[in-house]
């Protein structure tokens, strides 16, 4: 690992100033950054440990929503009673990610900005436009089982790895960021960028932009997370679905749908939502909506299976939620 300087500021202004310096990188739990630094993929000159900042609270908002400090550990957020009661999709998504040990370390801020697990991104001997812009993309014709099928480009097909982000996307989460120019609020759906021709630029954040909190609007009802992977636990998603569904008199009154494992960013399935809104809450409708969302999929031999897998997982998740809705 390349040597670096380490600072641990205790106020936000100092953290932003330190993070804005050339070559600086924020450090949360370290579960992604330390790994990437050891592999030589990240080589910061200064590591700014943000865990000394007062950003570890989960607070109720006056409007019924929830404000989650950027330093709340993934395990603590998953266990929070309000999250479990009002946003089950978020608790479930967190608990489906990584391991007990890693969830104890990982922070909300770090989870939002974790980088892809594309095997070639991790392998310095391979061509990878994300790691080394202009070098090519070995995943295109290589081992791309884990790679994305929606929102991809000819330059990069890497999937976003986070489970938490998929749930937060379905919940209309807003990310609060403090930078050198002050504080701003970014809808999570707009935080991450699609790769286009610049896959190395993954978000709209500038150097020094510190994530301070994530805010959730009032919960709208029943929600669930479903994750499909190569082993039962401790593996990244091949496909995952975060959904919220409200039904009245057989018709869909509120639908939120987001997908993981299939896109370079947590994917809000707006097309499917539009097709479902106001219509019947039955299996045929779920399937039509899922198929419409996946119609634009750009597949490779190694990941073509994800179209059917994602379609079926969407249908299964919505079926589960609609059954729960009628049982109540």
């Amino acid at each position: 690992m390349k040597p670096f300087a380490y600072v641990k500021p205790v106020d936000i202004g100092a953290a932003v100033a330190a993070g804005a310096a050339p070559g600086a990188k924020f450090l949360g739990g370290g579960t992604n950054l330390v790994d990437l630094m050891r592999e030589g993929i990240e080589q910061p000159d200064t590591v700014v440990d943000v865990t000394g900042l007062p950003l570890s609270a989960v607070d109720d908002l006056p409007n019924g929503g929830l404000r989650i400090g950027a330093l709340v550990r993934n395990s603590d957020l998953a266990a929070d009673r309000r999250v479990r009661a009002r946003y089950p999709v978020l608790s479930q998504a967190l608990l489906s990610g990584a391991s007990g040990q890693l969830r104890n370390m990982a922070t909300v801020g770090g989870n939002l900005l974790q980088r892809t697990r594309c095997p070639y991104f991790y392998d310095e001997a391979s061509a990878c436009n994300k790691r080394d812009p202009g070098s090519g993309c070995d995943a295109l014709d290589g081992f791309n089982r884990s790679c994305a099928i929606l929102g991809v480009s000819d330059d990069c097909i890497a999937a976003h790895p986070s489970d938490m982000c998929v749930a937060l996307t379905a919940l209309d989460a807003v990310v609060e960021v403090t930078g050198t120019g002050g504080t701003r609020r970014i809808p999570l759906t707009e935080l991450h960028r699609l790769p286009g021709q610049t896959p190395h630029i993954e978000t709209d954040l500038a150097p020094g932009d510190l994530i301070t909190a994530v805010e959730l609007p009032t919960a709208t009802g029943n929600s669930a997370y479903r994750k499909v992977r190569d082993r039962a636990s401790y593996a990244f998603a091949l496909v995952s679905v975060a959904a919220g569904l409200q039904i009245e008199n057989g018709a869909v009154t509120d639908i939120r749908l987001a997908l993981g494992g299939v896109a370079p960013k947590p994917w809000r399935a707006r097309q499917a939502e539009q097709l479902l809104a106001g219509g019947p809450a039955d299996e045929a409708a779920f399937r039509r909506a899922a198929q419409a969302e996946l119609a634009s999929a750009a597949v490779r031999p190694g990941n073509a299976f994800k179209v059917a897998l994602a379609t079926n997982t969407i249908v299964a998740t919505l079926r589960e939620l609609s059954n729960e809705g009628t049982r109540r």
Partner: protein
Amino acid sequence: MTLIRMNVNGSAKSLEIEPRVSLLDALRERLGVTGPKKGCDQGACGACTVLADGRRINACLALAIQYDGCQITTIEGVDHPLQEAFVRHDGFQCGYCTPGQICSAIGMLSEYEAGMPSAVTDSGGLGEAEIRERMSGNVCRCGAYNGIVGAIMDVAGSDAR
């Protein structure tokens, strides 16, 4: 070089380290505490699991400097019924994963007692499915899983339900 202080298994330690030294390397190479093992060095196996202020973590993805001021417990500092239960249940073959398994199980049991849910939680106490899910961060290449789960059920059955 920075001076950090940690309490390791009940004794106060201070050491001069570079910020890039992992907690695992600090323990093993600098303090001679070799119970935590380096299986993968990338968070994927759990062999390096230690307790930091009572919470289980992967020491390989931790920089020692992040844990300045913390209380670290490794297998050397553990005195727990799980240890005998692992022997009784053949919870290991080569033993490489065992220090991590036992530290992880101790952390897991206190998480469970504090009400931490898991991906398989519905109801019905700490059964086999719960243990397997909650212990999935500890891989055993000898495949001693049945003995590991048996040992934990044995101990947890009496004090966690």
